[in-house]
């Protein structure tokens, strides 16, 4: 996940079925066939190039990395049996299993990882996630990505076929969970190079080493994966086949679900009303946060009271209950609920830090009048940059209305496509901005490090020495001391809220319908949304 866009929720997980024929053969007889729908075509099956959830979903279903995430989002062995970490936490040595093979029969070796990771940071490859995920983590990744060093200098070496050694820039406590991420999946060098430009373009130009393998891929229409019999853990895979169709419209998804063509579909808030009391209704929580970014280089928003007013002015409960109506929760800080827990006590981050920002119109108004005084303004006009999706527009209309409860404030909403918003964000060409973020690995750092003075995603003009030192300390000196590190993060979040860098809105959930006979699907907080490896169908 990452820069998230509200509205991506519209249907990320609609499901569809394969042709009638197959249904006759398998679906109806209660065989292990899962029919799903996705809201968009798979953009790429090249793990170096993948950037979005759908790609990571199906990379994750067809490939095993060093580790994968288990039901509790903890790393479980994939290609790696186990690993050792050096004293200083900068050298990881992974022991790979020897029974893993590619679907063409080649063994999966340490070199496959070396090749894949090097490829991901190779500027000639043009990967976006490679440099992002590896820079500052794996040794020399940053320099290589910038074209200043040869790829062979990357801190990853195949000691032998089944031993992989990774050299980190510094101790990275969450590195283990990173290895489950799509960008770190292995690539069969020989095959990839043989396919050249057509690698991963079609079902037959890609290889699988995971629970499923591609059987067919009709671009734009859908694809089918079937159980990979050569998978090292094939005995634990029960599903025979997953049919996926591209379904863009929520109503269509619901109609398909009701006519039995797909086994799961996402619901928009309108449909939730209709299906809320259904047994098939479920809410999938996600650790994705939405919040308002405030540009501190702006005259008005440089005033901390103005920002605080905005933080408190919005009735978030009504927003999640009525507009989103999909189980999303108001967020009160900058760490999702149920995402990370204290390394010792297991207590949740959110619970420990409590509700930092609550809806409180009175407080907001107080801050606002102070702000107006300080600024010497009576009338304030702010531009609010929002997304152009249906949900985003509704939310934005609501927020406009809510913020305008602050006397003298006029909010003008500009709805722009995601790409445009990103560009204006980068150029800090905005005043208020509706933004979202999902984790890239399971560690508080993924939410907090972006507000560093030079954080790649800060773009708010926020710069606090105190904050910077808290985060930097956590990632260097305290990297090996989980508890102290945890404290730093708690501190940092409070500071972030106190400095009113952003106004939290909500933590997203997805409402969906899922047929009762679908079992064993794990929901992941990062990377692939679902794990189907252990899924099975159980019809009466």
């Amino acid at each position, binding site marked *: 996940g*990452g820069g998230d866009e509200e509205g991506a929720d519209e249907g990320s997980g609609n499901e569809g079925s394969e042709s009638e024929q197959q249904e006759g053969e398998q679906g109806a007889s209660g065989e292990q066939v899962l029919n799903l729908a996705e809201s968009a075509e798979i953009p790429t099956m090249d793990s170096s190039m993948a950037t979005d959830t759908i790609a990571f979903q199906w990379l994750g279903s067809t490939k095993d990395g060093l580790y994968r995430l288990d039901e509790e989002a903890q790393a479980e062995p994939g290609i790696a049996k186990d690993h050792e970490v050096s004293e200083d936490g900068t050298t990881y040595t992974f022991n790979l299993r020897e029974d893993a093979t590619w679907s063409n029969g080649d063994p999966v070796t340490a070199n496959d990882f070396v090749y894949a990771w090097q490829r991901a940071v190779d500027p000639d490859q043009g990967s*976006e996630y490679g*440099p992002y995920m590896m820079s500052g983590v794996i040794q020399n990744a940053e320099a290589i990505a910038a074209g200043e060093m040869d790829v062979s200098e990357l801190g990853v070496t195949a000691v032998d076929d089944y031993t992989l050694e990774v050299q980190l820039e510094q101790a990275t406590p969450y590195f283990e969970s990173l290895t489950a991420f799509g960008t770190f999946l292995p690539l069969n060098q020989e095959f990839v190079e043989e396919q050249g430009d057509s690698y991963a373009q079609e079902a037959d130009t890609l290889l699988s080493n995971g629970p499923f393998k591609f059987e067919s891929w009709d671009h734009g229409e859908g694809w089918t994966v079937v159980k990979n019999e050569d998978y090292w853990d094939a005995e634990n895979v029960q599903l025979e086949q997953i049919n996926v169709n591209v379904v863009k419209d929520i109503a269509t998804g619901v*109609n398909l679900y009701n*006519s039995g063509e797909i086994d799961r579909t996402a619901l928009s808030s309108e449909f939730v009303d209709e299906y809320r009391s259904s047994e098939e209704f479920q809410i999938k929580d996600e650790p994705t946060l939405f919040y308002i970014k405030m540009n501190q280089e702006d005259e008005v928003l440089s005033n901390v009271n103005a920002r605080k007013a905005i933080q408190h002015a919005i009735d978030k409960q009504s927003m999640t209950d009525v507009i989103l109506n999909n189980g999303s929760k108001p967020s009160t800080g900058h760490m999702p609920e149920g995402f990370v827990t204290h390394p010792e006590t297991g207590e949740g981050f959110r619970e420990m830090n409590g509700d930092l920002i609550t809806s409180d119109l009175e407080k907001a108004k107080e801050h606002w009048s102070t702000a107006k005084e300080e600024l010497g303004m009576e009338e304030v006009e702010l531009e609010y940059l929002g997304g152009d999706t249906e949900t985003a527009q509704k939310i934005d209309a609501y927020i406009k209305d809510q913020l305008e409860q602050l006397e003298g404030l006029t909010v003008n909403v500009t709805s722009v496509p995601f790409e445009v918003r990103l560009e204006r964000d980068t150029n800090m060409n905005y005043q208020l901005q509706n933004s979202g973020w999902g984790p890239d690995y399971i560690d508080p750092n993924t939410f907090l490090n972006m507000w560093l003075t030079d954080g790649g995603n800060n773009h708010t003009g926020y710069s606090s020495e105190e904050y910077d030192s808290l985060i930097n300390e956590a990632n260097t000196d305290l990297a090996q001391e989980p508890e102290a590190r945890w404290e730093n993060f708690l501190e940092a979040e409070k500071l972030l809220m106190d400095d009113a860098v952003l106004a939290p809105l909500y933590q997203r959930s997805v409402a969906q319908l899922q047929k009762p006979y679908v079992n064993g699907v794990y929901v992941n907080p990062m990377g692939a949304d679902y794990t189907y490896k252990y899924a099975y169908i159980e019809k009466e």
Partner: protein
Amino acid sequence: MVRYISERLVYMLITLLLIATMTFFLMKLLPGTPLSAADKLSEEQQAIVLEKYGLNDPLPVQYFNYIAGLFQGDLGLSFQFDNREVTTILLERMGPSMTLGAQSLILGTIIGMLLGLIAAIYHNGVVDYGSTLIAVIGKSIPSFVFAGILQFYLGVQWGLFPVALWEGWEYTVLPTIALAIFPIAIAARYMRTEMLEVLGSDFITTARAKGVNRFGVVFKHGLRNAMIPLVTIIGPLAVSLMTGTLVIENIFSVPGIGEQFVKSINTNDYPIIMGTTLFFSFLFILIILIIDLLYGLIDPRIRLTEGD
């Protein structure tokens, strides 16, 4: 004839080139980057990635490269679908759109023409008002509303046809009907007006004076003449049906080109936007050419080799 067509083709090429140029520069005005994870990357990193796509070159160089590519039939590589050739994507997506477009065009014009014919024959009668009403309604109700209703009733409630998806001929039924409404309305209107006009013309009186009966008058003498103006609007209609179907494509989950186009716009996938634009334009010009040739078939007065 051959000369005429080849002249037209040359002209078409020039037009396409101009269109390519225009869209190319328009594209450069679009805000945003084509990168899908731009928020993750520092500016330097973005620059490196853009380098790979040649987007850091000076504009004239980019333009020259693009046009040069065009002449080799190379529309470039897509950004959102890494490494996939625009040409391949267009070819894949064209199929369903064309199928739906063609089906609905044929269905729509035939039904519409029949409606219009009946209305013209029973001028000012109940049938006339009825068919005019259908035509007006067809023009007035947004196709997506109609599509939603079709899907819900014919698909979900009564189970007559597949609700959505694209897996066989029966899957084309609902979207085709939804799309056909507009051509039905248009064709019916045109047919009625033209037929009435033709029926009032002298040669129809001549035919009747020969003893040709009503049926013969309408079908043997009237139809072909009344169709001439209809042919003119079929061109743009065909193009809009084959390209502008994205709403229907979305609702029925059809992997078509219209939907792809809007997606590309949302992701700043320049090569696909340009490729699609060019392709649409090509289609448009080609259809116009075909229509002009058709004209010659329907109306013998138009000789393509004569005059200009």
